[in-house]
């Protein structure tokens, strides 16, 4: 049985619903031999800022039970280097590119978008709003609905391409931030980013990470991510969602689709299995074939509510 894997995330059509998540697939070209990016629904870039950033000092990662904590600190080559060095190759390979954007001020976000708008071959933008808003005292953009609405609206003005806002699971009120992003003009919401977490070195009596806090990812958080997708989908059933958090298998992807996601992103799983996103596409296809699902799109939001 042949399965139609294509999905729509708002107006954006994808050949299949599996994207690589930001920060776990470089700029899309590091794993061409193990996981060809053009075989995926799309690739979300490492978060880009106007200028290159060195990120946090090491150590930056800690293994946890069925997950890991990272504090990379948004190291990136800067939007300009990305556009010059990676984008042409991605374009040539016909990769669906979603540029992940962050900044410490609203202007910084807009700068990244403006620079990208000069280029061909970008399919959509994803705003990483788990970033301290320097002008508003360091509170994360994604934690305060009014700030988030303004940020989204500013970015909305800068582009007509699909604009995704990536929600933080640490926000006091998830649904309120979701609504704010939509009010500001978001076309879709991606969720979730990493969960705030700490690791402690018992012998040395100090936090493992120099900045103490980091973000938890991997299968450990899957049940939380799935819950959040379901909550946002029930509150805002018309808004396209992109599900993220601990996805490791085709079946995991199905669960997120059923909960209301139109597509999914695979992050940490790629560290354990560099071909994970591609494998998940195949497993998803096999699942649909076995269950008699002709088109993956049918699964989106198809959860029976008891």
């Amino acid at each position, binding site marked *: 049985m042949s399965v139609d894997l294509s999905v729509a995330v708002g107006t954006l059509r994808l050949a299949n619903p599996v994207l690589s998540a930001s920060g776990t697939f470089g700029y899309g070209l*590091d794993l061409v031999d193990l996981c060809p990016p053009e075989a995926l629904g799309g690739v979300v870039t*490492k978060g880009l800022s106007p200028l290159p950033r060195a*990120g946090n000092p090491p150590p930056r990662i800690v*293994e946890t*039970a069925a997950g890991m904590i990272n504090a990379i600190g948004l190291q990136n080559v800067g939007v300009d280097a990305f556009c010059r060095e990676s984008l042409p190759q991605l374009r040539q390979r016909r990769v669906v590119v979603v540029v992940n954007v962050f900044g410490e001020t609203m202007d910084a976000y807009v700068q990244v978008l403006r620079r990208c708008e000069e280029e061909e071959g970008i399919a959509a933008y994803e705003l990483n709003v788990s970033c301290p808003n320097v002008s508003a005292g360091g509170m994360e953009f994604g934690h305060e609905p009014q700030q988030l609405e303004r940020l989204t609206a500013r970015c909305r003005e800068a582009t007509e391409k699909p604009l995704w806002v990536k929600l933080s699971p640490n926000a006091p009120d998830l649904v309120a931030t979701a609504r704010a992003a939509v009010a500001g003009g978001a076309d879709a919401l991606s969720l979730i980013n990493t969960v705030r977490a700490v690791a402690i070195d018992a012998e040395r009596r100090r936090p493992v990470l120099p900045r103490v806090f980091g973000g938890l990812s991997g299968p450990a958080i899957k049940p939380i991510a799935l819950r959040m997708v379901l909550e946002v989908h029930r509150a805002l059933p018309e808004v396209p969602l992109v599900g993220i958090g601990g996805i490791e298998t085709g079946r995991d992807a199905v669960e997120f689709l059923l909960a209301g996601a139109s597509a999914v992103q695979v992050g940490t799983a790629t560290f354990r*299995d560099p071909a994970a996103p591609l494998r998940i596409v195949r497993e998803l296809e096999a699942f649909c074939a076995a269950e008699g699902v002709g088109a993956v799109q049918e699964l989106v939001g198809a959860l029976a509510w008891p």
Partner: protein
Amino acid sequence: MIARRDMRVRLAARRELSPSCFLLELVTDTPFEAQPGQFGMLACRAGRDPFLRRPFSLAAVGARGEGTVCELLVKEVGRGSRALRELAVGGELQLLAPLGRGFDLATPEGGRLALVAGGIGLPPLLFAAERLAAAGQPFDLFLGAATAAELLLVERCQRAVGAVGGELVLATDDGSRGERGVITEALARRWASGAAYATALACGPTPMLAALTQLARSWGLELQLSLEEPMACGVGVCLGCVVDGADGRRVTTCKEGPVFRASELAARWWQ
């Protein structure tokens, strides 16, 4: 560049080398090759515990039948290495290899290499030693450990060194075998008595590498270091394994390393 592959490997044998260290012989059906200093990311047990793969330096890679046999030397310290200790012979694991940038083994005309290994830093240097021996390139091997029992595979090292008329220098902190003290002091004594090396290749604990860097700088000796940093992906996509580079950039140990020339690293990395 040698193509990397994510391979199914079978544990063909495990051999105890010391109270804490053992050797794994992993075989795979597909042929693969590697350079000394390169490593593999090994899933140490089926399932999700440990969650991440662990990087291990390749200690030897060679053809066996249609396939390949690959040796690792492992020190038992935590979840991953313990799982490897428990794995029954015949059990299967997943290995992504070869990864990273290995040693540059080219010796300047008439020059001589010093290989310096501390404790479980031996594997990449054993690989280098056996390659150099096979190629007839002269070298001396400096091997240090806390105590005699932790000097690994001494005879095998001796054979490799002997093949090219080199010297195997042993040192232990407690003097139970070889010279007493740390291995860098043994190297310094050789240097002082006129042994001029073109390049040193080294792997071992950070204090050893730091001491070596100081000495090499004062001697004007070129130095290649194999570094160990915590890694999540091993392939350059997570940016988890960075160290500070000489040019102010943070460089990935897994992709740009694990072997760096000392001059590529920030001076403060050593303090």
